[in-house]
């Protein structure tokens, strides 16, 4: 596979070579070459754009317009009367943003979201890497068992997973409280995991991590098969221990995958919504609010659509920092082809 990839990567430079040869026959050597090359790209340019058109059109329609609308909304005053068309939306400049940024609760939500995202991503990546490495060391049948559990939790609809976790963590009849109470010296019967936001969000973190680890493990496992055995062996001969081999051989080779997975995890974990929403019965308490649920609540519970949009926009901007890193990685991949 890797060989195929490198050959395709190297084909483009050799392919244009016939055109300079044709061009050489034209008067004026180098300029002629330039012309033919340009003509070639111009001629074939219509085809890819035609292929792309339907896809881009749909994305523009269902994504582009709402995105523009999101931005304009956040600079307007848009509530229930505007929604019903009794009133035209009024432009209010940065009023929505100053209202949000001046609100202490908003900053608490931002901090909570960042901590939650960071915690979930770090846990997902570390556990994912450990399990991927473990999968290389266990017997075949254990590997098969882990794979089944991974695929089952990966394929589990988020909403189903949320229902299951809600059930396991149930105050009165949840199996977890019962199990923990079996431990000597632990009395957890009737413990309400959602009484405090910290514990409740920890449970939600577990739920998110449980659902996210499989993708990381399976992707990293695929990556680990690409690590050349000879390099590991060479490092071992040079006196590297297990950690040394991992740090100096495995990790650098897996770096692009890890960057990609981490960025994707950040994007997904910052977008967590149904887990919190459903866990809290559609009405998360103040100490459970993340940026997503907070924006939702502003818009659809308080009917302040412009305030909700402003929060959503801030969320998107926050993500952009991460996206920039991811984008560079993806572009590199795109260039190789």
């Amino acid at each position, binding site marked *: 596979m890797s060989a195929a990839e490198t050959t395709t990567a190297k084909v483009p430079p050799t392919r244009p070579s016939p055109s300079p040869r044709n061009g050489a026959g034209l008067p004026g050597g180098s300029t002629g070459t330039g012309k033919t090359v340009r003509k070639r790209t111009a001629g074939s340019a219509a085809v890819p754009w035609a292929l792309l058109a339907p896809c881009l059109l749909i994305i523009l329609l269902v994504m582009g317009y709402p995105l523009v609308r999101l931005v304009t909304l956040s600079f307007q005053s848009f509530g229930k009367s505007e929604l019903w068309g009794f009133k035209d939306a009024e432009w209010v400049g940065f009023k929505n943003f100053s209202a949000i940024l001046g609100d202490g609760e908003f900053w608490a939500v931002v901090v909570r979201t960042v901590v939650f995202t960071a915690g979930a991503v770090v846990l997902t990546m570390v556990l994912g890497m450990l399990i991927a490495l473990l999968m290389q060391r266990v017997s075949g049948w254990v590997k098969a068992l882990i794979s089944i559990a991974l695929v089952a939790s990966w394929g589990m609809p988020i909403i189903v997973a949320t229902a299951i976790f809600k059930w396991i963590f149930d105050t009165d009849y949840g199996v977890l409280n019962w199990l923990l109470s079996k431990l000597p010296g632990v009395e957890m019967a009737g413990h309400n995991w959602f009484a405090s936001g910290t514990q409740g969000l920890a449970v939600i973190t577990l739920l998110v991590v449980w659902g996210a680890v499989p993708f990381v493990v*399976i992707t990293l496992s695929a990556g680990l098969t690409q690590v050349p055995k000879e390099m590991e062996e060479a490092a071992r001969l040079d006196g590297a221990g297990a950690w040394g081999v991992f740090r100096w051989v495995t990790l650098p080779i897996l770096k692009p995958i890890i960057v990609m997975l981490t960025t994707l995890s950040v994007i997904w974990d910052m977008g967590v919504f149904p887990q919190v929403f459903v866990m809290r019965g559609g009405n998360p308490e103040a100490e459970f609010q993340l940026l997503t649920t907070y924006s939702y609540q502003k818009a659809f519970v308080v009917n302040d659509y412009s305030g909700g949009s402003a929060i959503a926009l801030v969320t998107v901007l926050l993500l952009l920092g991460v996206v920039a890193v991811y984008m560079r990685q993806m572009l590199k991949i795109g260039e190789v082809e």
Partner: protein
Amino acid sequence: MTSTTAAPAAVQRPKSRSRRGRKGKAGWNAVGLLVFVVMGFPVYWMLNTAFKPAKDAIDPDPQFFPRPFTLENFRRAFDVADFWGPVGRSLAVSSVVVLIGIVLGMLAALAISRFAFRGRKIVIVGILAVQMVPLVAMIIPVFLLLNELGQYDKLTGLIVTYLTFVLPFTVWTLRGFIVNIPKELEEAAMVDGCTRTGAFVRVVFPLLAPGMVATSVYGFIQAWNEYLYALMLMSQQNQTATVWLGNFTTKNGTEYAPMMAGATMMAVPIVILFLLVQRKMAAGLTAGAVKG
């Protein structure tokens, strides 16, 4: 010990290493089994609850096996609200989304992976960027847009909005599968007299088919699993399967046993589908990432 001194070090070494390896393997296997138990427990608990009598589900001393084994919860799940309606709607929406997504997605994926053209980079960035906007951020304007277009509470409106996340994903994954098919195969076919289209249909398409199946299944699952848009854009009588699951929670609490039965009915077909394609998916999603 005596054999140690007698045998040359070179022979001795692999022996001791393999013994340590075997012992190590047992240790790793134990850790692996622990991972299996922890990862698998929620799924097991769903199945266990689904098949035990509802009164046993709320026993403070939970049973680890459904005894007696009952299908009563499934019957109750069918009764809670119309089951086939939401499932039928989810099936319809997901199938149409995948059908449109895979056709348009393949054309677009072909364009960005097989053609060098001006603006290609911008298109790639655009398609990637679109994937990054969280759905929740879009819900307000999408809600307003559909409201204005008279598509609120309509399956067509839901289908169009689902395309926003299925389409970019489909393009990006199919791109991964296409790049893994050597260009030389197409070129060889063209040398043998095929047109560009002919080369694609006869050579690339058959090789791409498994990737397309995997992508379709994955896209189907994504659409099937979507919750937020389904909740916001559809009324009670038009709800989809994911939202239907919420019917077990009322003001009087949650009926966990029938809910787990409902969850089982929703999850098992999806997990099985998933099982069939996951290996292929991991390859498609990460194509080029390692080598990049």
